[in-house]
């Protein structure tokens, strides 16, 4: 759980009000987030990109097998929100909100949700 300080390309000086808000955010994120959460975040970014690409394809090229597009896109969206849920459940900052959900339980929920989701995705791909 130790917050590993991954070296950001940014300079060693800490966030200050002179910096742009986005940079502040980036630095604060890098400093305070555990690797575990960062792994999930990487997964989230990947899913988001994948979803965006599918959406663009649908708009720009064709939406012809509409059910296939919906299946693929919902797979991304669904997996994204499930992973985001997992992220907020295992985030130590939210511990008092999820009293009944331990990190292990959260992962089991995530796995179950993903299985159900992909069962429907597979059925809908056609």
């Amino acid at each position, binding site marked *: 759980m130790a917050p590993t300080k991954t070296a950001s390309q940014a300079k060693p000086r800490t966030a200050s*009000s002179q910096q742009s*808000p986005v940079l*502040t*955010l980036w630095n*604060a*994120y890098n400093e*305070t987030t555990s690797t575990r959460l960062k792994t999930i975040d990487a997964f989230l970014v990947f899913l988001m990109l994948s979803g965006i690409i599918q959406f663009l394809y649908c708009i720009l090229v064709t939406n012809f097998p*509409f*059910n296939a597009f*919906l*299946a693929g896109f*919902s797979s991304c*969206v*669904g997996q994204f*929100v*499930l992973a*985001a*849920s*997992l992220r*907020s*459940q295992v*985030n130590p*900052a*939210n511990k008092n*909100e*999820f009293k*009944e*959900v331990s990190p292990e*339980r*959260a992962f*089991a*929920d*995530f796995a*179950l*949700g993903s299985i*159900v*989701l992909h069962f*429907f*995705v597979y*059925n*809908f791909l056609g």
Partner: protein
Amino acid sequence: MPLAYSLPSNLSPATVANTSSLLRIIALSLISGAAIASRLFAVINFESIIHEFDPWFNYRATKVLAEKGFYEFWNWFDPTAWYPLGRVVGGTIYPGLMATSGVIYNVLHALHLPVDIRNICVLLAPGFSALTAWSTYMFTKEMKDESAGLLAAAFIGIAPGYISRSVAGSYDNEAIAIFLLMFTFYCWIKALKTGSAFFGTLTALFYFYMVAAWGGYAFITNMIPLHALTLILMGRFSSRLYVAYSSWYAIGTLSSMQVPFVGFQPVRTSEHMAALGVFGLLQIVAFAGMVRTHVSSKQFQSILYSSVIVIGLVGALAFGGLTYKGWIAPWTGRFYSLWDTGYAKKYIPIIASVSEHQPTAWPSFFMDLQFLIFIFPAGVVLCFRELRDEHVFVIIYALVASYFAGVMVRLMLTLTPVVCVAAAVAFSSLLDTYLDPVEPAVSEAVVPSTEADSAAAASPASGSSLGTDAAAPATGKKAKKAAATESSASGLASGLIAALSPSDKSSKPRGIFGLDTRSLVIFNAFGMLLFFVLHCTYVTSSAYSSPSVVLASTNPDGSQHIIDDFREAYYWLRQNTPEDAVVMSWWDYGYQIAGMADRPTLVDNNTWNNTHIATVGKAMSSTEEVAYPILRKHDVEYVLVIFGGLIGYSGDDINKFLWMVRIAQGVWPDEIQEPNYFTPKGEYRIDDAAPATMKESLMYKMSYYRFAELFGGQQAVDRVRGQQVPKTGPTLDHLDEAFTSENWIVRIYQVKKEDPLGRDLKSANAFEQGKKRKKTKPLARRKAVV
């Protein structure tokens, strides 16, 4: 602490807990038993038979599923419905009900219990009502506690508002849908409370089942987003809300699209867009929340909030634009008719013509819910006292469902569960308050202080129901001491008393004193429960247990007389007509003809093709000469009408006739006009004063054909309309009377073929009756022979 009555003190907490859970299990099973038993009136009074109209189709489809398997059922094309169009059944139904019965059937047969599929269908609704009681118990338990849950389960188990759609034999989608509704809501509340994706997934799965089972799933589709949106607006956004809503929406929406009848609607129609919008909003809010944990500048926060608002606006605009461009279908007519009760009558008469789409009459609220309906607001108010997230849900549900129940009779069904829940919360608060033996500590606090009048003050206090008022003048100072030790248990009553008494008395001891007060209130409460049970049993047995396929009347000596005209006529059709003989009737009877007579029909209760129905309406409401070509073009061989004039059956075709006219007028406004069917005074008459259009219409002729003869020269009276029928009845040239049932309820006419000699049927008929033809047209006959 003083007690009003003594409690056993030698019980360990574990014993109490175990005993109470055992009692709960026993109570729940008894409630289930009562719920099932009270729905069996129909089977006992009549027989194990499928009721009404839609259930006959469901039954027929289930038989196909049970006999031929799931794939055959899924791909079933029914050529006999909507002749000559046919109907793709697999893609135009909610298969949940049939699939449920099919699974039960197969399981029972795998266990070597050869139960007839009909009995499964008949008893499915009572069985699921037991499950509904259980899920209502679970739901209410989340609202208050187990005792409220048990009350709610008992209420929903026997409330006529729910029984009306779930008696044995009422094999309709609602039979399982209310269970699914309550269980989905329970899972949602649970998911929201714990923030568990597991319950979110479960919500989605039951939502899927619900989508597969009933068109009313749109209620859930909009209730949950409305709840989530309200919570966000109340500033109650939490990660738990995010987890619960996102997992439900992502899986639920995808799964709902697996049902062929729903198809792409969840991403294409406006009814489903609220859920999508809230989903997007939640993502933004959650992201903003995550960013906020990293950047703690207040200015930054405000920027984020404004950006949330901007994004919301952009989203709404995009939605409007998409609707405008036609990518998202606008609201459907059924939806508009929920807001404007006159809409359907103006634009879609076919929806307005269904009796269960009419606005609810006031008495039916009392009839369906009895005392629950006036306890209900108290329960909703009680939800405001704690106002946890789940209470917000009940409040919203109560508001929305009350409105909808006022708009449409059939939506009473969605109101009933929340009324039961809220009433149970209120009622159990009342019982909690008055069963709790703890008394306010006034006498104990006062007596040690050695005041002379304290005993005198305390004794009237324990005697009157609003004890504080009596005790107040004497025990001013001491009461303040007592208030410090006052128990917190006196919830509802103390609130009421505090509201009633002036503000300076708020520090005085409040609560319930003595046993007599308690017994009075509790006696009253149990009296209400008792009358509720009596009312429910009475209403269920007298009003809601009629199969409407079989009618019952009472003989002069009080015994029951069964009127079985419908089945008599349908079996006549089944046994005396060729298997492909097309039967025309008004659409109400389409499913019954298909189910019981097994003959093709022109239109049925799946009212998907308005033009086809209007065609039948036109044939019924025009003259024989106009109707005959329509009948011939549609290969109609038999025409079936329902006529109640002899026996006083008011749901007959003459009473429905104006709807046929209106629906036909919607398609052929030039040929059919509703005012022509009224007398110049605007009356709807069938006697001598009836307008010519009315008397010439096929429906009128078929209904009253030879009716006057039955009275043997005396004045014929139509017992439904209470009007005298003309002595010389109508004549029919293009139809032959084929069958009339015992009480004349069902009359079947055979459509004549074209005359073999090429004459028109009117003159051929006249010839057969021996009337002389006019000499002006002798040529036609000669030509025909050649």
